[in-house]
């Protein structure tokens, strides 16, 4: 366990980098995923097609392949940035497909009778959506959306693995590789680092789930 104490600073920077990657990617994924979900339920056929292609393409490609395509593709269309941002972009694109599906299935899970009843008592389109459908959709969306973001924190390790570096996973690689430490204590440290991030997130999600849960 000496490794943990000795390299605490390194681990700490790793946790921070992992958090940074997750935070930026999470914001990007939420924005992009919401846009794509809107595309998928819109009445405009080309937008629906883009949404469907986006989701089916990104959901079925391994994240590592997505990241390689971003890293080699974006410079070719004259978009240049530090490698860190390519990693964040890749993770955001990949996660946005799952965010989109979570949102869409949430909207679809509200029984049509709800919207019909709202319209029958004379609510306008905006009122129907804003006071009847979306509040219910939000409740069903919380658990899957939370799981998507927890999975994203874990996927940030892949961003580190393809060469962004500096995150918790890469700290483990560095310690067992160039610094020549024994793998098992280092593993314990890295595992603890991820659990510090994912377990509270899971508990928070469980709390939110109970708070907004509805029996349907």
């Amino acid at each position, binding site marked *: 366990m000496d490794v943990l104490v000795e390299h605490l600073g390194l681990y700490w920077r790793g946790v921070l980098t992992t958090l940074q990657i997750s935070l930026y990617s999470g914001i990007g994924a939420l924005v992009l995923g919401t846009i794509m979900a809107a595309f998928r*339920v*819109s*009445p*405009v*056929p*080309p*937008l629906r097609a*883009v949404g469907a292609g986006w989701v*089916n*393409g990104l*959901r*079925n*490609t*391994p*994240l*590592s*392949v*997505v990241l*390689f*395509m971003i890293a*080699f*593709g974006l410079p*070719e*269309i*004259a978009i240049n940035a530090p490698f860190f941002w390519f990693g964040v972009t890749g993770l955001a694109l990949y996660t946005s497909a799952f965010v989109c599906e979570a949102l869409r*299935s949430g*909207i*679809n*899970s509200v*029984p*049509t009778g709800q*919207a*019909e009843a709202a319209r029958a008592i004379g609510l306008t*389109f905006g009122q*129907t*959506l804003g006071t009847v*459908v979306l509040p219910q959709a939000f409740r069903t969306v919380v658990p*899957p959306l939370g799981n998507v973001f927890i999975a994203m924190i*874990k*996927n*940030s*390790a*892949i961003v580190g*693995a393809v060469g962004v570096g500096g995150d918790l*996973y890469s700290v*483990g*690689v560095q310690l*067992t590789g160039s610094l020549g430490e*024994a*793998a*098992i204590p280092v*593993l314990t440290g*890295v*595992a603890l680092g*991820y*659990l510090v991030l*994912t*377990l509270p997130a*899971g508990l928070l999600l469980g709390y939110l789930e109970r708070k907004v849960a509805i029996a*349907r």
Partner: protein
Amino acid sequence: MSALYDVPGPAARRRTLIGTIVAAVALLAIAVVVIQRLAAQGQFTAEKWGSLLDPTNDVMPQVWSLLIGLGLRNTLAAASLAVIASLVLGTVIAITRLVSAPWYRWAVVGVVELLRGLPVVVMIFFAARALPEVGVELPGASREVNTLFYLVIGLTLYNMVIIAEIIRAGVNSLPRGQAEAASAIGLTRWQSLRLILLPQAFRTMLPALISQLVVILKDTALGFIISYPELLRESQIIVQTTKNPLQMYFVVAVIFIVINYSLGKLAEYVERRLSRGRKMSAAPAQPALVETTGQAGD
């Protein structure tokens, strides 16, 4: 969500048409810009694509035999071994958790939560680093077989607990009457699980299990970090000679998308068939309830 608004009249249809045209033009413009820039960088030349698509190119057969014959074969081998191991261990975890003493249940919950909180890439990396340190390796096996072994261990650790949770949820979702009837005719807890509950749970959970296949297949692409010669690793090696990374990774992505998209469609088909069967038997009771349970499938 057609219940949100009235059937579109002429004005709404006109707006939709205008929106369609605007969106199509905008998307086309983006596509044109991207293609122009790629073309300006020489990304559409025969030099870049020849080794992948031109049958008269002399390296093409070699490239594809490495990609499919070696890479994809190894990917599928790792995925199927991981699937089998995860299914067996996941079932064992689920069953023992359902029938054992409380202290054991709590221990299992702890392990499940621990393993679910860790990235799969960490498990694969440390299976390959830590297991040889403590002397866990296949005796007399080649390096390649050993990396396969570690990759499968990493994937299995991660996926077995997810599959265990899927099966447990499946058993718990069955009507209580099933277990009660089983014990009423004198079956033991273990018999009722094996003969009555598990067969039904597997059936209802089949779509979720197939979706998990997609996850496992995608995660085998992490084999490249421990130099297991799967599809992505092979493409990386080929790219060092052919110098066309963008084209190569595009092709690899297409291969994954084709396989995983088909698996996803299979899961949807199975789910439709199962829910149709369920609907017929449950229709007289409460049709509205059945519809909503069908959508919670993922």
